[in-house]
């Protein structure tokens, strides 16, 4: 699997390269600035790009903007955005194109390499992986109107885990229920959010987006 890494801190970039290579990824480019990253993403079209939000030259949200721009140039280009902090605002912007293949994680998630590598693979496969911190802040919001208000507490729980990028099997294991029960919940969620029947992955992305926009 071909990976492009955009990270300005050498130690972290080096660590990412070694971690991913150890798990059998092929690092086609590891760059430290936003313009280089944009070029690498659009020209090399990797299977997944791993992008730090804060990059030179302006050290603000250059990485995020590069990720969005690259996805405009190459729709659906899977991008996993890493940051020292997570914002619902940025998560919304990343997911706004509804194409899936988006991850948004705190940098510390790299500490547990198994989960991190799984997240990279999920994103590369077109899934949506949001950091549990984003999700927990979503949960804190009281929703009094909109389609989400119609969800039962259990369905909200399932939706939250869906937003973290977990598969139905993983959700079932986490909630100590059967796969079938989870499938029932997800179907109910899709119905309540008025998501037309299409492939499951896309509906999951749309459900998460609806969740973010609630």
């Amino acid at each position, binding site marked *: 699997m071909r990976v492009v890494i955009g990270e300005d801190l050498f130690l972290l970039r080096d660590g990412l390269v070694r971690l991913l290579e150890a798990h059998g990824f092929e690092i086609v480019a590891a760059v430290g600035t936003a313009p280089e990253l944009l070029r690498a993403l659009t020209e090399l079209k990797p299977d997944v790009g791993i992008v730090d*939000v*804060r990059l030179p030259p302006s050290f*603000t*949200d250059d990485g*995020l903007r590069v990720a969005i721009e690259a996805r405009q140039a190459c729709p659906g280009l899977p991008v996993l955005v890493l940051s*020292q*902090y997570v*914002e*619902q*605002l*940025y998560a*919304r912007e990343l997911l706004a194109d509804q194409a899936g293949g988006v991850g948004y994680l*705190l*940098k*510390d998630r790299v*500490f*547990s390499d198994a989960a991190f590598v799984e997240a990279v693979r999920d994103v590369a496969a077109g899934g949506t992986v949001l950091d549990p911190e984003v999700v927990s*802040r979503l949960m*804190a*919001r*009281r929703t*009094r*109107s909109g389609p989400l208000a119609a969800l039962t507490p259990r369905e909200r729980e399932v939706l939250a885990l869906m937003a973290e990028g977990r598969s139905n099997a993983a959700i079932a294991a986490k909630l100590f229920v059967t796969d079938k029960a989870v499938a029932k919940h997800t179907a109910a969620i899709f119905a309540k959010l008025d998501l037309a029947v299409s492939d499951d992955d896309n509906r999951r992305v749309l459900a998460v987006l609806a969740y973010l926009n609630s």
Partner: protein
Amino acid sequence: MSTSGDLWTAWRGRLRANWVALLLPLVAADTLGLFGGPFPVLLVIVTVALALLAPAESAKLAPFAAFGYAGYGLFLQHAVLMGESPQVTYGILKVGSADNAGWVLPQAAAFLVAGVWLLGLTGGPGGGAVRRAVAQLRGTDGQPKTVPALLLLPAIFLWEELFSEQLWFGWFAVGRVVALLLVIAAVAFVVALPRAAASLAVVGIGLLGLYGALVAGHRLLTSGVPIPTPVPPAPYTTWFYGAVPLNAGTSGLPAVVQGVALLGFAGLLVPRLVTWGADAELASRAQALAHRVDRLTQTRTGATEVAVAELRRIERDLHDGAQARLVAVGMSLRAAEQLMPTSPDAALALVAEARETSSRALADLRDLVRGIYPPVLADRGLADAVRALALDTPLEVTVEVDVPEEPPMPVAAAVYFGIAEAITNAVVHSGATTVLVHVAHAEDMLRAQVTDDGHGGADPSLGTGLAGVERRLAAFDGILAVSSPAGGPTIVVIEVPCVLSSAKTSSC
């Protein structure tokens, strides 16, 4: 230890310092002839005792005695005009004598002026205004010299009218009262509006000069022709122009000379008016600057205190949070190091624990950074920072931002934290379900308004949060206002003067 000699010296000193007090018995004594019976004598005794025993208090009373005495003069003048001849003395005059009839009013006016002067001297009620006017007249006490002594000139003319047999104001009884009222008004005018009085004085001198030059000049040219003025009422026979009598037989030349001299004088004073104007402007600017310096000193102290409190909080948070956790990480790793050869499993558990702890240290640092300068504010500016804030708020928050250009960072941060505090209060205290945040920039003013639909009744003086925000805003001349009637809604308004342009010449 004080001896009787010391007491005597002290008492004499007090009396000398308050010599004005002696006016009281003097005035009282002059009413001796007015009333029969023992009353005036008693009054004299009381005032003497008062002046001797309580000189300071008596001195403060004295100006009002002078005013009263001036009023007494008016009363006597009125009696004379009514055809009575009261056989009393008024100051240095025997009022009953026909020769002295014209002198009562001037003396009354003299006491009026003396009263004003003493008021400033003794510091009685109203003395402050007099002293300020005097300071302006003299140009002392940091006040500009805006009023010349020449202002007294119109008063002298009035004075001269009071001395003369006839007035400009028609029938002499009414005229004298009008004249006296004018003197009183002039004194009040000078005290209250010295600069306007100065301008008017110059104009008045000019007009008097013009009057003389024209009227008397006309008379000079048509020598001997009487000036077309009303015939003075008996027993008066002569009209005066200033010091110059305008008898039918006299030449108009002195009047013309006086008129021209007055005109020239007024001409000399006109440039001074400009100087006084400039002085006044300088003075008002100096005053404005002084106010500004006061305000800056105050807000700088506030800003410094806010900054120090912030640093203390950051230090405490670091000390109790990230720093402590990193110490724990170090200790876990050290223990793992030692356990590695003997029990690798236990070492592994410790390493996992260290990793966990380092994650928590990072979380602590994230929270801290949010409180110092929120990342979205740094990345995107005020509008997106407020939107991100709204997304993280467990209420329905609507955000409307209408700011054409990003405000300078410190202003944006101050406004952001103000909005954050208002939203936090809405979440914690108000019982609101929705919040509206409106940020707009108009007429060089950045204005943010946070409205919630809660139950209101918030008391901004109770919380420290808004007070801190207020002090932080004050550093930019910004203000914070809270309206929270019982039953709601609660509205928090923040206003900061702020010019949005690439040229950073403003104070924001």
